[in-house]
């Protein structure tokens, strides 16, 4: 899953610049003196905003809304106030009333197109299931219908692309992202659209097309954040799917760090690609940054069996003792979850949990509602980049890729393409590029690691015996250099396979 759209992460200081490019499309008739006063108030507020005197800026814009409520500047003030709620206050829901007013009273103003796009993006972000995207889609379409020549059209197209992607309409999403890029190839969202389009191509099975588009980002905008992201997305795909070098033990990771952890049992990866390790003896998760472990969360969570990270790096721990622990507190374990084996948070904020003893996956929505998907009991679980999950069923002796409706999209028999089969799966990991890594055990294969591609083809594999690993490996994660990190709880160490 690709992170939040750039629009919602704009630095506050850019707001003024964004509003200054208002095109001459306002058709609001106002007395000249009102327009002059409104302009002065708008600029005065902007100056204060640039100086980060937010209160003064907001007061000035509110004064503008009261003293010259029919002006185009009033519409711009509403947009700026709404953006402030999103970017600075981080309360997108508080922006909606402002944008509703903008939409209702100022649809002909210069701020309307951007206001509608922002409203659509907030609605999309607040959606908790695919059908919730309906209003956001309508808003984006409204921008395209009402303002076909406006620069915000590219943002609306990208919004439609994301909505289609989140609804699993890959072809439609590809078309929208491509159109968004074609409409504004120099625009701030162009590389992001190209990145999204590239990922969809991979989902559709066009690896070369995906890599070509990722490379295009690197070539045309080498300094952009998207180019950095494209770099690792290219690298992991080339390593795992094209070069496929034999796995080798590189040694402890970070290099030289041995026996520095307290019984590491679980691994996950942040949106930024940094590993998070849960240390069983400390009952806490730690972010590994620049070789150092930084604690995450506020309190220890004993009995943790599964760990999940949200798109905004929010941490969820699933414990047999304390239930589901989040930043805001804990809730009891949902029914049918007695022996959690895996968890992850999807794009909607829904927590997916698997249980070793009970069939089915349990989905806990952001609003606390639960539902289950009819699947076999899973001994391991990971998010699938296409929107569903990948689970390991020892009973079925297969890895199963299921969509949010519980349909099995892909089944990879244990031992597929291997000379000898394994019997159990200990842990699963995925990356944002469609790869599935499994920590396996038993059978003639024994302990080891296998990596499968999005189509279920075996890409890389090695037994721990062949790698010379003798510890107790409990979890794994795919890194952004085409390597694999594994937890050795016996030796209190992380190891890297390359």
């Amino acid at each position, binding site marked *: 899953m690709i992170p939040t759209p750039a629009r919602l992460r704009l630095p506050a200081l850019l707001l003024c610049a964004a509003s200054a490019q208002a095109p001459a499309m306002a058709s609001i008739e106002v007395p000249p003196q009102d327009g002059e006063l409104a302009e002065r108030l708008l600029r005065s507020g902007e100056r204060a905003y640039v100086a980060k005197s937010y209160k003064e800026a907001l007061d000035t814009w509110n004064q503008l809304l009261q003293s010259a409520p029919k002006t185009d500047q009033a519409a711009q003030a509403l947009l700026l106030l709404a953006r402030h709620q999103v970017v600075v206050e981080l309360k997108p829901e508080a922006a909606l009333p402002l944008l509703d007013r903008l939409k209702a009273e100022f649809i002909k103003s210069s701020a309307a197109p951007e206001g509608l796009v922002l409203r659509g993006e907030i609605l999309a972000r607040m959606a908790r299931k695919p059908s919730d995207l309906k209003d956001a889609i309508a808003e984006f379409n409204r921008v395209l219908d009402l303002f*076909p*020549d406006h620069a915000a059209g590219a943002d609306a197209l990208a919004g439609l692309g994301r909505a289609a992607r989140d609804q699993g309409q890959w*072809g*439609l999403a*590809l*078309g929208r992202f*491509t159109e968004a890029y*074609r*409409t*504004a*190839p*120099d625009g701030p969202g162009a590389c992001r659209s190209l990145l999204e*389009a590239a990922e969809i*191509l991979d989902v*559709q099975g*066009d690896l*070369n*097309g995906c*890599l*070509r*588009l*990722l*490379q*295009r980002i*690197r*070539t045309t905008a*080498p300094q952009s954040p998207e180019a950095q992201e494209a*770099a690792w997305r*290219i*690298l992991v795909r*080339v390593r795992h799917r*094209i*070069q496929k070098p034999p796995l080798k033990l590189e040694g402890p990771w970070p290099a030289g760090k041995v026996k520095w952890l307290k019984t590491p049992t679980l691994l996950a990866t942040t949106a930024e690609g940094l590993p998070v390790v849960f240390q069983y003896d400390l009952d806490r998760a730690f972010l590994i940054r620049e070789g150092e472990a930084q604690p995450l969360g506020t309190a220890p969570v004993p009995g943790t069996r599964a760990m999940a990270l949200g798109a905004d790096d929010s941490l969820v721990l699933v414990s047999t003792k304390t239930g589901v622990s989040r930043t805001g507190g804990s809730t009891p374990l949902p029914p049918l979850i007695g022996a959690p084996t895996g968890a992850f948070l999807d794009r909607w904020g829904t927590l997916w949990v698997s249980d070793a003893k009970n069939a089915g996956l349990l989905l806990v929505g952001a609003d606390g509602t639960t539902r289950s998907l009819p699947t076999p009991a899973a001994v391991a679980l990971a998010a699938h980049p296409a929107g569903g999950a990948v689970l390991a069923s020892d009973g079925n002796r297969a890895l199963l890729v299921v969509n949010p409706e519980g349909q099995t999209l892909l089944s990879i028999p244990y031992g597929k393409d291997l000379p000898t089969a394994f019997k159990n799966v200990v842990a699963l990991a995925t990356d944002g590029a469609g790869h599935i890594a499994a920590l396996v055990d038993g059978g003639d294969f024994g302990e080891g690691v296998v990596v499968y591609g999005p189509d279920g083809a075996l890409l890389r594999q090695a037994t721990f015996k062949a790698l010379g690993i003798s510890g107790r490996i409990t979890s794994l994660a795919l890194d952004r*250099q085409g390597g694999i990190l594994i937890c050795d709880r016996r030796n209190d160490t992380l190891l890297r396979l390359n």
Partner: protein
Amino acid sequence: MRLHPLRCLPALILVAAPAPEAAAQDPALKDTFLQAKALWSTQGNREEAAGRFEKVIEALAPKAAALPPEWVQVLSESYNWLAVLDDRSPQTRSRARARFEALIALNPDFEVDRGITSSKLSAMYDTLKSEKLASLRLSYAPEGGTLTVDGRPSALLPRKFLPYGTHKLSYAKPGHASFETVVELGPREAKALEFKLTRTSSTLTLFVNPSGAEVLLDGRALGHTKGAAGPESTALAAKANLRPEDLSEGFVVGDLKPGEHTLEIRASCFRPKLLKVGRELTEPMADHLLEPVKLEASKGLLTVQSPWEGGELFLNGQSYGSLPVDKAPVCSGTYDLLVRFPSGGYSSRVEVLEGKPLSLEARPRPRLAFVGLEGTQDFTGRARLLSLLSSLGDKVHSVAYLPSRPGESAKDALARLRAGREAELFLLASPVPDKVIHQVALQISTFEGEEERLVVKPLEADPLGGLIQRLNALPPLSEPSLGISLVDLRGEAPLVLSADPMALKAGVIAGRSLTALNGKPVTGVLAFRQALAETKADKASITQGAAPLPLGITREALEIPLTSSRYVYPFLLSHLRLQLLGARGEEAAQLKLNLALALMHFRKFDKALELLRDTRLAATRGVSQGTLDYYTGVCFLKLGGVYISEAAQAFRAALKAKDATLFGPDGPLVAPLAKAALDELKL
């Protein structure tokens, strides 16, 4: 080059060259003069002779002040002859005095011909002369210099007659210090004056073929050779196998101080000649005559062609006829080359090298006419902005810029340009209405009406900087390719992702790194593309770990961006339209596709479809026929529900193009996009 000591040249009468129009006289007048002399001396026909002399005087006297020396002599002799003829008859005798008075006024130094003039008449002439003029005896050492009297050139004569009063005389000769003096002449006074010059330097006298060459001494321009050498230079000219008239008059290089010098003689269309002047020519100081200097012609061959019709070639403003111009001999040098087309123009500064062919293809550029600044309202920075707009053509090389005409209103200019189709693009400046004008809108529009608006501030540092940058920018329509796709890997050589059949046949292995291009290490895809773009040859070699593989360089088509702040789209449209006029085959089809995209920028989907409908691209990979089909479908969709079936048909065609891409060879495949579009149509 051999040098000769200066021989005694025939005494030259050096006078200032008259104005060309004054010097030009009817040659028949000279005949009239000679006939008059012959009529009397050989036939004794006084009446006929007098009539002819009168005709000569009638023709020359009104412009006596501007006559060259030769004609002053003719006029003077005519007066003399007429005085003699008048004196022969009692009826006309009284007129002789008037003839002499006119003669003295015209040419005080003239000596009457004592052979035909009676002693009585001669005495009258002397008396008349002495009443008005004083006699001054002059001697010159050395001879051959130039004499000026009261600032005007004068003939070198041993005796001069000057009006009474004060006169300033100076005598100068190259290589000598000039002499200047003032004499006071009273009635019936006779004085003598001796000019004796002191030598200060050596001199060189040059005769150059061709005449008109510039002469420089030690890099300092001395002047140009002129005129033609006389018969006295026959022997000299023969040494260079030339006729005297092929040589210039002698050009004297004076002020040649002791030491070594460099003399340069150069002329347009000829190879410059450098002469080393050694010490033997400057020490001791003397006058020297050089052998004739013959400059060798220096020409190149210029070929100018154009696929566009109706072009006319101009070099430095001079017409060289209609295109094509094939291997035309052109003097070597730098030229402002201009080709005028019925639509658009092409201009370039070119250098023609001696003996070298220069070949170029002229592709017309759109003409951008600045129609003016609307309105008369004054505002701060108005003059500055107008000045910048007037000189915009100096900085924009992608268009032929036509400045506004002084005094013509923007409206009139627009009407004139439209009526005469004198430009493809129009630039109109309009102040943005406000209480105080701080912004001016620059509107660029095509003849067909597509327009773009840019607001500038007259007082900003470089109000036109952005416009100039964008007008000079043209998106590439193709890029060099070896038929391989590469991806960057951090810290490693790029990987060959895929290769076309030709590259595979040449031995390229997909999935393997590319380590070198033309023997030089490749660090990344960007560096590879830059190095390939700089490769002049039509082949390049790549290395994938083993022996280098030679690959042919082809060009892959690119799309222009549908919207980009880097370009001025009205200009882009005009440019593509002009390019299309001269394009054929596949190139024309590619141009039509891009022209359609530029029209899509302006949401003129119907116009874009007009172009796309009947265009076929032979290419099947990259930006190709499938791309064109896809955009055809997109345009039909934009026209609304009426054309849904046509849109579906176009997308179905695009669906079959498995290797077609958007944007460029590394863009997304068209087929999945066409499929998505078809799926959406079914919804």
